């Protein structure tokens, strides 16, 4: 029995070691588990984070597995009680964590294949874990195509990292905003406006997509129109997990528990679930 099965709801402590502002609302938090042991997560998995006295909430891990030592990163938007309390934290303060939970992007299936990352808004956060994993093992993967869409330029996150990606010749980056402003001289339009510009070989292309609920059906339709098999389209469906272990019912998508059978699903497996997309 792992500790998880013995104490399923008990978090273990982790310390905030770094805090970096990504936008007016989003901050990147780096945590070090006090146990000294790495989280052992896989790209796409989430953890439950406790701000004692405020509450507990689920967060996707944004760093790739074992990025540097045993720290891990969460990029969090300030939107509710727990996230507001997190933003008020100082380096050195502690939180409680449990997990990782849920399914992940099956990294082995992407080996030797081209990958299109479709990141709508904060969807870049969980995808970044898979993306950085692929970049670390660059030779094992084919083309890496990154598509990023935001509502407006002020909501862009990881701006410097994305600039670095753009500078590389082994990564293709396409970015768009729904509504531009005077600071923005890039593409303006929905995220669906990006795919038509890219030449792809549908037989060897995998898609990993995370974004707001409204995004999925349009992008999936587009991918299928380009000949990408529904077997090769992966989505991460985020719901408000409360227990993380398939009991509390909050994250149910029809009969599936997004915390156990998800959050990462192969589109093929959920296309008949009307509540999924």
């Amino acid at each position, binding site marked *: 029995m792992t500790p*998880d*099965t*013995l*104490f*399923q*709801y*008990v*978090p273990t*402590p982790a310390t905030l070691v770094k805090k970096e502002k990504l936008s007016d609302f989003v901050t990147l938090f780096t945590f070090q588990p006090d146990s000294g042991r790495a989280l052992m997560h896989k790209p796409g998995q989430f953890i439950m984070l*406790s701000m*004692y*006295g*405020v*509450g*507990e909430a689920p967060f996707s891990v944004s760093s790739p597995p074992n990025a540097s030592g045993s720290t891990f990163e969460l990029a969090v*938007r300030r*939107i*509710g009680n727990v*996230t507001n309390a997190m933003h008020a934290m100082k380096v050195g*303060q*502690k*939180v*409680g964590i449990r997990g990782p939970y849920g399914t992940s992007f099956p990294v082995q299936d992407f080996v030797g294949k081209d990958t299109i990352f479709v990141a709508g808004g904060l969807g870049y956060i969980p995808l970044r874990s898979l993306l950085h994993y692929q970049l670390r093992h660059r030779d094992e993967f084919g083309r890496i195509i990154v598509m990023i869409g935001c509502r407006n330029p002020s909501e862009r996150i990881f701006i410097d990292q994305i600039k670095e990606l753009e500078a590389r010749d082994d990564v293709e980056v396409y970015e768009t905003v729904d509504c531009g402003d005077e600071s923005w001289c890039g593409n303006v339009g929905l995220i669906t406006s990006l795919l038509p510009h890219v030449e792809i070989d549908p037989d060897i292309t995998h898609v990993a997509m995370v974004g*707001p*609920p409204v995004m999925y059906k349009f992008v999936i339709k587009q991918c299928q129109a380009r000949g990408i098999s529904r077997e090769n389209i992966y989505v991460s469906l*985020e*719901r*408000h997990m*409360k*227990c993380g*272990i*398939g*009991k*509390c*019912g*909050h994250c*149910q*998508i*029809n*009969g599936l528990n997004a915390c*156990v059978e998800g959050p990462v699903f192969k589109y093929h497996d959920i296309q008949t679930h*009307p*509540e999924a997309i």
Partner: protein
Amino acid sequence: MTSYTVYMDQLPGLLELWAKEFQVHVPVEVEEGIYDFVPWRKDEEIAWEYDVAYNTLKRFFLPPRETLLRFDPAACTAEVVCEAPKQLLFGVHPYDVKAANQLDTLMRKDVPDNNFIARKKNTVIFALEPAAVARNAFWASVDAHKVDNGYDLYWTRISSASFHVEVATRRGKELLLAGGPLDLATDADKEATRRAHQRIVKESLRNGLKYPWRETADILSRAWDSTLWQHRARHCFSCGTCNLVCPTCYCFDMKEELDNSLTKGERYREWDGCMMDSFSRVAGDHNFRPHTRERFRHRYYRKGKYIFDKIGQLGCVGCGRCVSGCTSGIADPKAVFNELWEADRHDS
């Protein structure tokens, strides 16, 4: 299986013995025609012929509010809380035993929920053959008129002065014989038990599903776009009563609170209900089931299909509590399922 005959006048002595070790709960008439399980007291008149306990018995394994952790916010440490009082529920009808068994299966699935398991383990269940069928009940038609596990003793009242008691576990036998030897049941007593069971099942079958219960999931797989959801849910107040009184609903929310000094706190879970508007709302105020029709449909899919797909049982035991409790009279699983079955038959 060993069975005994227990006489009514032997019961007070036994109850006293059991109450020394367990918190004993029995069904009593709490208001005219309304029954519920309450802590047993000497001279308490047990309602042997109760039709249904007003509140679900899930509260004994999954309390409405249950502390899971105590924490120190400054030190950022937490310790597990796992309370499991020794309790004895005397007089549980088979459909409620079945509901408890179902919760047990689901709570053990994948990652086990140890708080639930500990409570369930420390609970002795003495099942009782129903002697009356509640007006809204339909348990025999959903396969909940019999159970083969999840109880320690099975009691059937065979005369005004005696019970036939079938032993199911060693713990049950020890408790039954705690006051001394009892008469082994005679063949006549066993026959009386069989007849009592037959009579009540027949009565329960008068009201129920019009088709074999196993077909429910299949019917639902074609009913997603039925207009029934809109028709019925139009009157739904999203009050969540059907969730609260349901013996197989187990959704919960996680909350916490600090003490007055803000130095200690506890995290607890509290019953939640999928009929409530807030249930599937996420950050950014997005709601995955914003309309009552979607929540109403989800509840019936969960009862009729999702749980069936997982463990092969209907998630409804036909107790009829939701029918009685529903503020606007729309929550009736047998009416919903029968109507969908009729429509399905018509379509095919």
